[in-house]
């Protein structure tokens, strides 16, 4: 049973095809690490999956509607001039959470920001803002998590918080799709791996010990010039 599927998806920016017939299926309850070099099309594919962009051709299928999707993009997606609590209450209302206040308090507790819940996000350190972004993405306990470079520029504590939340979500049956360059962190969680090269998916399959032991193995065997 697939939670997320992309079927021969093309995306043009002007005449340039950022995606060229990319197809991938992600089983429910699994974690797909979407690997590829800069410009391979990872972010474009994730944005299409998150309904932030329309495919030029092809089709996207999701097992849930937008209420079941959690998205963490390049930006942290929180308002600097609102407090941590106000940010989460707003997103709770947008996500249609039944009790936004309870959900917000639980989310703040999960990321260790309860003590500063009334502080403005602009007054937070970079690490605290990143943890608030993680709390926002997990606020409504999504069925499908779409994460674009989730570990990039996170501090150690935020990485630990995110990894623990992702492991918890996986254990609870959530499906995760994450694009990343940080293969070691990704391989701790990934059950499956897809490699994108110039807009095409050139490899999909379960994660193997070779991939964990050697981050370059996948590129050498399936990447350009393999």
């Amino acid at each position, binding site marked *: 049973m697939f939670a997320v599927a992309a079927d021969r998806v093309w995306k043009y920016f002007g005449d340039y095809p950022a995606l060229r017939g990319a197809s991938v299926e992600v089983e429910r309850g699994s974690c797909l690490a979407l690997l590829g070099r800069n410009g391979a099309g990872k972010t474009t594919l994730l*944005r299409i999956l*998150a*309904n*932030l*962009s*329309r495919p030029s051709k092809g089709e996207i299928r999701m097992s849930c*509607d*937008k*209420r079941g*999707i959690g*998205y963490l*993009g*390049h*930006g*942290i*997606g*929180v*308002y*600097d*001039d*609102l407090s941590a609590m*106000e940010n989460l209450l*707003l*997103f709770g*209302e*947008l*996500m*249609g959470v039944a009790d936004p206040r309870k959900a917000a308090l639980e989310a703040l507790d999960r990321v260790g920001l309860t003590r500063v819940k009334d502080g403005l996000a602009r007054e937070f350190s970079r690490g605290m803002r990143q943890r608030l972004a993680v709390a*926002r993405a997990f606020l409504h306990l999504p069925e499908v998590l779409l994460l674009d470079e989730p570990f990039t520029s996170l501090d150690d504590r935020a990485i630990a918080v995110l990894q623990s939340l992702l492991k918890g979500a996986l254990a609870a049956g959530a499906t995760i799709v994450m694009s990343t360059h940080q293969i070691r962190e990704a391989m701790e969680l990934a059950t499956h791996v897809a490699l994108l090269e110039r807009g095409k998916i050139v490899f999909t399959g379960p994660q193997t010990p070779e991939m964990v032991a050697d981050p370059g193995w996948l590129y050498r065997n399936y990447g350009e010039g393999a």
Partner: protein
Amino acid sequence: MKHGLATAFAIARKDLRTELRTKESINASASFALVILVLFSFAFNLERDEFYAISGGLLWLVYSFAGALIVNRSFARELPNDCLDVLIASPAPGWSIFLGKAMAAFVLLVIVEAISLPIFGLFYNIHWMDSAGPLVLIILLATWGITVVGAAFSAVIVNVRLRELMLPVLLYPVLIPLLIAAMGSTTALLSGESMTGDNSSYFRQLIGFDAMYTALALYMIEFILVL
């Protein structure tokens, strides 16, 4: 529908709250309106009757320019930290995001207008209180038109680098029918005419403009936000 309206109000509340904390567009807009009103009062050396004859045009030039400063920020304030992506990825329908933005801009522009209307009366010696009821109705109708078209163009140009320059170029040509009706009806009211007969067509023009552009913007916004 119910969730859409609830999220529209949540987005409007958020925009008003952040604006009241930062005061970034309301300060600029109110200051601009007051400075222009004061400058015009020195620039024209007119008799009292002549001031009444240009009162509508003068007032709506100021309000429409002040409005552009407010609507320019409608969608641009979502750009820091990529908040617009999170709004679009949320289950909130596009029309509710737009409606929330337009409502917040409407409230902010009405505040600017409420501040500048007494100043306008004072500097130009115009007794607007005599026709306050219909005047307020015209101001509300025309202000909604300005904010709904302005917020829609704010969404169109949100990713354009020179959006502050682009907005007036796009906005004012579309606002011409609305501004003609607002200026004509305001001049008529301030000159002591009633809003019956030929003057009632201004009301119909304002209502028609608002209905048409609100419907168009609510329908089109999904195609504007997700490309």
